[in-house]
């Protein structure tokens, strides 16, 4: 482990972390792990070993306790992902309204397979389970946003606009 680079979290992140820890009783700081992991994933993009080790150190728990949690919950990225991670709901209610076709359309357009990232590092496409947007199907989640009532046009528009923002 000594070969791994150590990470320092910024002051802004540290102060948010302490805010989270304060929500739980004295000695129960481990409770803050899920929100803290969200916070650091937003910053670093995925759960690298140095990031997880740092979280363990802050919470005074063993690194294995962080790995256990990270591998259980599906929202944590176990490897780097594209700048925009397109998570398509593929569950029943979305499927009934064309989710499979819209996801295939997106994969074809980007020239990648499910789970892959485009060569420019911009887009990753994955399939996830019901996101609680069943009445607004088909839909995908991208970061904090739910993009609902998807059509091939809205997918085109989404991809173009994101490509343009980085040009």
């Amino acid at each position, binding site marked *: 482990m000594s070969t791994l680079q150590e990470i320092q979290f910024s002051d802004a992140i540290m102060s948010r972390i302490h805010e989270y820890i304060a*929500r739980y*009783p004295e000695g*129960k700081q*481990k*409770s*803050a*792990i*899920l*929100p803290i*992991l*969200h916070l650091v994933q937003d910053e670093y993009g995925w759960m690298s070993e140095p990031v997880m080790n740092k979280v363990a150190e802050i*919470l005074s*728990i063993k690194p294995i*306790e962080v790995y*256990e*949690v990270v591998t*259980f*919950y*599906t*929202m*944590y990225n176990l490897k780097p992902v594209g700048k925009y991670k397109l998570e398509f709901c*593929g*569950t*029943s*209610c979305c*499927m*009934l*309204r064309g989710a*499979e076709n819209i996801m295939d359309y997106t994969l074809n357009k980007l020239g990648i397979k499910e789970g892959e990232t485009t060569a420019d590092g911009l887009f990753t496409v994955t399939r*996830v*389970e*019901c*996101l*609680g*947007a*069943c*009445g*607004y*199907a088909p839909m995908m*989640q991208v970061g*904090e*946003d*739910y993009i609902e009532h998807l059509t091939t046009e809205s997918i085109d528009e989404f991809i173009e606009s994101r490509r343009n923002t980085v040009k």
Partner: protein
Amino acid sequence: MGRKIILEHYDVPNLKDYNVYRSVGGYRAVEKALKSMTPDEVVQEVKRSGLRGRGGAGFPTGMKWSFIAKPEGKPRYLLCNADESEPGTFKDRYMMQYNPHFLIDGMICSAYALGCNTAYIYVRGEYKFIIKILEKAILEAKANGWLGKNILGSGYDLEIYVHTGAGAYICGEETALIESIEGKRGNPRIKPPFPAVSGLYGCPTVVNNVESLAVVAWIIQNGGDEYAKIGVGNSKGTKLISASGNIRKPGVYEIELGLSVEEFMYSDEYCGGMQHEGRDLKAVVAGGSSVPILPKELILKTASGENRLMTYESLSEGGFQTGTMLGSGGFIVYDEAACIVRNTWNFSRFYHHESCGQCSPCREGTGWLEKVLHRVEHGTGRWADIDLLVEITKKIEGNTICPFGDAASWPVASAVRHFRHEFEYHVRFPEKIKNREHFASEPMRLFINEFVK
């Protein structure tokens, strides 16, 4: 028009802002409870209302509260279950998005009744936009003296915090939710002990659904008897139903319990009938993915020919042979073009993915179900597979630590029970189901004619 309790003020712009919520009578319930009622009186009021848990199981809320242990020197916790991950369910999100203060209002009354000084709202991690809304509402409530120390000079203290999940359906199960708040994997606990005795950090804990807790505010303000006037039999009050699938108007509706399924399905006030003209209703999953699927004939009428009503009792009439459950209120509608086998495979993939893996019948069984359903749906199924599916569900059901095992079994068992002909069709005519939307051009009823010949 049905009576609206939860959605009463939905046309009021910016209801999610504190001042607007206050202007429609918000937080009067807290005032009433803290200034003029003892905690026990609040519990009695909720008992009188007949309110049953809106998370899925329908257990009477007031009775659940009366089980909480009160050992000296131990804190008690109230946990609001906003994990909402059951496919077809999106009602809690809807309520929290437009009216977050209603939930806080109800939670303060509830926490006071239970003697809890700390409460957490466990929100699924994907609902980041909801988390922001809730955190803002909590800050507003605190700034206006509804949370914190010595609320309204009553001597009662309460803090409410949001806790973020991270993508695991099983964390909606109450003991998995508790493990998750403790910072662990969401593995359900063996019961007993029940959370009411030993829950979060080993302390007495109550877990309630978002809708159950919010409604407490209305019950306190208007009285339990007033609430109990709505509904029929042991199904009191109103219920949020999230409707999706092949209907004209998907969305969240508040109904008075007792409305007929037919009216809910076809009236313009609710689902508005079928999505595509000329395509008939095939099936409904009435209470979220876990409850048995019913064909058109059995969802509109019970086996004895009575109109099926949106109540706990009517939906479950006939047991699992011919009935289903109200569940979480996730109402999923399938038209003739939908393939029941494909849908069942889809559900089994969900359950396999979401099993926490602690018990072998669930971990292995859900994998088997997915695998067998995959091959039936993709044209390589065998006749024996159809009975095999039922056998697997029997091995899982009742043999697991938590009810997830049952939840994974029922959709499969009921699909084979009511739509066996579709499974047989898949096995017999593999070349006809190659196209993903194999029933889109020729609905199954046309196939059946051919099949029966």
